């Protein structure tokens, strides 16, 4: 990895970290959901600073260059995050349905 690549990746990692903390502070993001993002920012920083680990991972998954490894892990992370959010949306949709039904039934009971 070139120095530019390292600086760029570190900036992304650290920037992500700060943005997440700020979002939690402003109550735009719940602590619950910040967890996975903070872990990501932290993961990027660790992989850049601990270059041997990145090289070992690169070798492990059979990639050619460490940047590819970062890309692949980034992709896998986004995939998993999307899956997680889909699960959450499914749950929220079901809860909204229950709420709407309960509300409708209790309003009907009121009007009688």
């Amino acid at each position: 990895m070139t120095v530019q690549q390292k600086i760029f990746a570190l900036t992304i990692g650290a920037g992500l970290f700060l943005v997440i903390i700020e979002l939690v502070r402003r109550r735009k993001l719940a602590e619950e959901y910040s967890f996975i993002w903070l872990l990501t920012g932290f993961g990027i920083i660790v992989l850049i600073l601990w270059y041997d680990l990145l090289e070992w991972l690169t070798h492990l998954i059979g990639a050619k260059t460490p940047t590819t490894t970062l890309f692949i892990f980034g992709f896998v992370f986004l995939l998993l995050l999307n899956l997680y959010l889909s699960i959450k949306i499914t749950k929220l949709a079901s809860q909204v349905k229950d709420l709407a039904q309960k509300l409708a039934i209790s309003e009907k009971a009121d009007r009688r």
Partner: protein
Amino acid sequence: MNKNNLAIIIPAYNEAGRIATSIAGIRKFGNADVVIVNDGSDDDTAGEAKAAGARVIELPFNLGYGAALQTGFKYALDKGYEFAVQMDADGQHDPLSMEALISPVLRDEIDVVIGSRFLDKGNYKAPFVRRMGMYFFGIIASLFTGRRITDPTSGFQALNKKVMEFYASDAYPADYPDADVIIMLYRQGFRFKEVPVIMHNAAKRSMHGGILKPLYYIFKMMLSIFVTLLRKE
């Protein structure tokens, strides 16, 4: 304790078989209104609570401890109650201690009184990890509030309307209110103190079981305290 402006708020999740005993225990010490917030239980918690003479608020699904409790505060504010006592449904909190808890609030000396199981030598024995967590966050809360906090996780509290309004706001955590809320109380300028209370060992406590959950809890609490300190309030 025969107050009609006092609500005793109890969030309950799957407490069938115990809830009636808990309500009867409270009734022995006065006839304040008991408000049970049924947090989407799978069992007959609501039915048993109604039969025992409590007012029951039914959440359509499980919202978590903090959100259920907050529902109780919102209800109490809506109904015009001036004071509230919050306690657990499982009989862990001894109603004998209620008087000591609520008196300073009724006399308007304190805004919120937190019942501590550790101030006096009680008979309460928590599992090791949980005890360490309480101890650790107790120290952090003490550090940032400048007074000794021994039991930051205590869900046995007495509070007045001002604190109810604060607890009803978005600042109140939906999962588990803890040291972060105590630090918020301090930063909001509320008068608060701990008093010793009697707590019994509850039969079941799933709150911090396993390995991942306590780790997540520690992370969440650290982050929550950290951002609480960053907020200018």
